[in-house]
């Protein structure tokens, strides 16, 4: 039956040719490793966020008077509402975590180097957008946690010289966080950012297909990048392993491992995305003590606190982000093996340790 359907489609639209070109004939380097499957895991996470988000929209009301009640209704009254909401909340944390791992593997294997500079830049932009979609979604439940975390986050824009105060007001839709903030954050969260992210994922995959997948710098004699900017050249891997079925199996394995971890958090650590303030409706006249941002913003939060002036703190972060975003244009040596790049490796490890230390400090302070 399936074979007949396949033949029916093949006769009409040439499915066989696509399968040959994109799946069985799409060859990957023989020494490819599991880290390359994180992109597929991220695609699955994004799809799951979209689906659970759509489901939540059925009962969620983006109105300051009703938002908290509607979320409580989803959690306590709607059958399996708790599951859908937890999948969405835990999924958003997981998406940031896996995205960071994906970028770290790219960083350590030197895959961001020429000719893949644009893959890195689109990936980095995606990280920023995913943080943006997480931040805007954070306000949706209209709890004390959402309200005050958004107040603190939007307030950091006030450090921008001259335009600062106007920028904060523009972000909030008023002088303080209030019903207009919920309206614009919800529109960004549920309509604007998902479309922009999906488009950028498309661009990211398009670039991947045009440049060809990079070979890991391990287990081979030559680890330097053979790219020479003379003319366009697709980097194929003759004699490599086919994407289907070989690497699809690796993708499915990684996705299964991801689901095991994800569902373990959903079922055994459902409090992970929440603090007690998440269960109290927003009160604009009562600031709770110790409002902290999400774990992935803790380092930024602590950096802002360390520097005596907010502008300096913000500038340091902006400089660090710009440096990372433009890394492929700064680090132009062709060598990709991490152990053959000791200064780079030291800097990466120091950077990770600094980020962890700042996050822990931010959490404890």
């Amino acid at each position, binding site marked *: 039956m399936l074979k007949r359907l396949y033949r029916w489609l093949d006769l009409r639209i040439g499915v066989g040719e696509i399968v040959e070109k994109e799946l069985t004939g799409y060859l990957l380097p023989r020494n490819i490793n599991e880290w390359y499957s994180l992109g597929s895991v991220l695609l699955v996470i994004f799809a799951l966020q979209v689906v659970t988000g759509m489901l939540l929209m059925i009962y969620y009301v983006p109105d300051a008077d009703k938002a908290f009640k509607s979320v409580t209704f989803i959690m306590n009254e709607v059958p399996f509402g708790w*599951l859908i909401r937890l999948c969405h909340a835990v999924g958003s944390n997981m998406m940031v975590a896996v995205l960071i791992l994906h970028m770290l593997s790219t960083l350590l294997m030197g895959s961001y180097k020429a000719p893949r500079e644009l893959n890195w830049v689109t990936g980095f932009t995606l990280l920023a957008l995913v943080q943006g979609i997480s931040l805007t979604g954070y306000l949706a439940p209209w709890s004390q946690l959402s309200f005050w975390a958004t107040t603190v986050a939007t307030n950091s824009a006030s450090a921008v010289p001259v335009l600062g105060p106007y920028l904060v007001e523009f972000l909030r839709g008023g002088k303080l966080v209030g019903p207009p903030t919920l309206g614009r954050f919800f529109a960004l969260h549920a309509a604007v950012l998902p479309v922009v992210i999906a488009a950028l994922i498309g661009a990211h995959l398009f670039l991947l297909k045009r440049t060809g997948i990079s070979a890991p710098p391990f287990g081979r004699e030559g680890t330097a990048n053979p790219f020479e900017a003379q003319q366009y050249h697709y980097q194929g891997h003759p004699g490599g392993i086919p994407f289907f079925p070989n690497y699809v199996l690796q993708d499915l394995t990684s996705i299964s491992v991801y689901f095991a971890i994800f569902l373990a958090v959903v079922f055994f650590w459902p409090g992970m995305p929440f603090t007690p303030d998440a269960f109290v409706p927003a009160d604009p006249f009562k600031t709770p003590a110790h409002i902290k941002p999400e774990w992935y913003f803790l380092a930024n939060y602590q950096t802002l606190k360390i520097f005596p002036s907010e502008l300096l703190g913000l500038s340091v972060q902006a400089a660090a982000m710009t440096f990372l975003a433009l890394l492929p244009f700064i680090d132009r040596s062709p060598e990709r093996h991490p152990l053959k790049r000791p200064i780079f490796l030291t800097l990466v490890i120091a950077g990770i340790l600094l980020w962890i230390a700042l996050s822990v400090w931010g959490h404890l302070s």
Partner: protein
Amino acid sequence: MENEGRRRFLGVCVAGATAAAAVAAGYPVFRYLAPRSGQGGGAKLVIPAGELKEGDAKFFEFAGSSAVLIKTKSGELVALSAVCTHLGCIVQWVKEKQQFLCPCHGGQFSTDGTVLGGPPPRPLAKIPLTVTEGNITIG
């Protein structure tokens, strides 16, 4: 041959596991989307008899749907579903003619729900009521 059997066995296992996963994921989504059972159903509604004058009609929500209570000119009380049996629009009470008119396609019903004209295929459903101590209990 042995290899073939192994392959088939693994195929069946994978298909079974995929089907189980699909059911495990699909069931919560179905329950999440399904209308909540028992919403407003089975409940009784009490309306004070004094609220309704002779020849008047009172529309209200009953068992998750729309219903109407009328007191005919002869003083008889009738409770009916207000949902037109043609395409589900809500009928309107025409006091002057003492009958119901569905504004969607012109269906007409008498005070006891019988079809007087237009496309409705069935009479309006009757809802039982009891009158005790000046109160009308619907349902």
